[in-house]
């Protein structure tokens, strides 16, 4: 459903993404792994339109999305979780989630005259809040949450944002082991429901435990690709990680 071909992005002399090509399939969890600074987040920034590619193409569901605007790509069905916290800190958790439901809230006249969220909208966010396990602090201000709670709210917001593909940048980085396990289960549950997920994760064990397919990057290039078993025994991968 997502095809990336010959993607390049340089920052001055740094070849952050250097001729990267890969493909991801529907109904699968694909993991993008690699040492720090290998270009994973930059690939995500290119997919979601935050950075403009120097060259190469990104095709999503047969449509070219290379260099489209961030909101357009989101509305085509790519929902993203950032590596760092990006909640709306002065709004409540509930408001953070409601914002992601649809874009009726950007229609000026409709809102001025009379627009309210429907019961269905509330049901939808409550259901996902329950699945993710954040229903106990829905009315808290997002800025007052703990690190782990923020992470969960952001995951919930990315799930609520209508999408065909979830791209998650280090969803469990800095998260305690208990929560880590919960997020792992949550992602597996999402996959069973038919979600396609592209996931960046630094932690090899976590990744190999959850992914159907693994893509390994090092210094801006894809150095290996395959199922977890193949990756575990790949010489290039071991070198990249040991050489870190």
């Amino acid at each position: 459903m997502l095809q990336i071909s010959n993607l390049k992005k340089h920052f001055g002399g740094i070849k952050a993404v250097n001729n990267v090509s890969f493909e991801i399939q529907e109904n699968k969890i694909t993991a993008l792994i690699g040492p720090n600074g290998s270009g994973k987040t930059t690939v995500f920034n290119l997919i979601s339109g935050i950075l403009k590619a120097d060259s190469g193409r990104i095709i999503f569901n047969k449509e070219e999305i290379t260099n489209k605007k961030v909101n357009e790509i989101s509305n085509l069905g790519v929902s993203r979780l950032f590596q760092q916290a990006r909640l709306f800190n002065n709004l409540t958790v509930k408001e953070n989630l409601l914002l992601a439901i649809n874009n009726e809230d950007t229609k000026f006249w409709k809102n001025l005259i009379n627009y309210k969220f429907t019961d269905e909208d509330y049901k939808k966010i409550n259901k996902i809040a329950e699945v993710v396990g954040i229903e106990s602090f829905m009315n808290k201000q997002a800025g007052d949450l703990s690190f782990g709670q923020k992470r969960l709210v952001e995951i919930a917001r990315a799930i609520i944002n209508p999408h065909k593909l979830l791209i998650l940048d280090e969803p469990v980085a800095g998260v305690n082991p208990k929560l880590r396990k919960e997020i792992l289960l949550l992602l597996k549950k999402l996959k069973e429901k038919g979600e396609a997920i592209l996931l960046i994760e630094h932690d090899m064990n976590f990744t190999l435990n959850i992914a159907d397919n693994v893509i390994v990057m090092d210094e801006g290039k894809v150095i290996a690709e395959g199922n977890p078993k193949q990756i575990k025994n790949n010489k290039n991968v071991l070198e990249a990680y040991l050489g870190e």
Partner: protein
Amino acid sequence: MIEAYFIHLLILIGIYIILAISLQLAMGFTGLINLGHIAFLGIGAYTSALLALAGWPFWIAFLLAGLIAAFFGFLLSIPTHKLKGDYLALATMGFSFVVYAILLNWTELTRGPLGIPGIPKPSLLGFSFSSNLSFLILTAVITLISYLIIKRLVTSPFGKVLESIRDDELASKTIGKNTFKSKAIALVVSAFFVGIAGSLYAHYITFIDPSSFTIIQLIPVLLIVIVGGLASLEGTIIATVVLVSIPEMLRFVGFPSSVIGPARQILYALILLLILIFKPKGFYGKVKL
């Protein structure tokens, strides 16, 4: 005597409330530090004054004052849509300098520094608002309508979109919001209300010149917004009443006019300093500066 003065004060408070709540819409709710806000006041005041003097009915001049200011709000939103924080403040400050320079130098239209005297008092359906009491009622009605519309907007889901842009514009785009459009709407609506406040001001004072629309005149409005608390309309209204009235108290205590001007500026600077140290969210705000 005191009663007449009181009415005058209330009219000023009404005009300042419109100025301050429309700045809240742009700055408190959407995070757009718009130092061009005062330019919209000038655009509204001149539009309304010139049209009225050319014989147009008040209500048309009044509405066009809002619409033309809104159009300039839209124009301002285009080149500034990628700017944030200090850069946006600088760019919008540039806008207010440009408008001021035009008001000062396009003498065929504005008479430049001589200003425009003899602006007629408003009249509607044959009724003339020439007494200050009737003007106060007109101002109160328009202030109330402005408040209700802005209140409705910021409490609607659209208001939350604006707040999401203030908190994290990239995150807002990432969940699919067209933030360029939403910010433009915020600026346009904000400018519209400042424009009609400018019309009220022009027809109340009956004389305008460019010096009323410089960035210095924006300082009390900024102070009101900060004291009231970002994103709090009620706080803004209370802050307007207090901050517009306080310096006037000095007059009653017996200070001469020559002292009140500088005293007001010192007072405002002092209040701003104290707020920033002790109450960075303002009195009623929930949003940090």
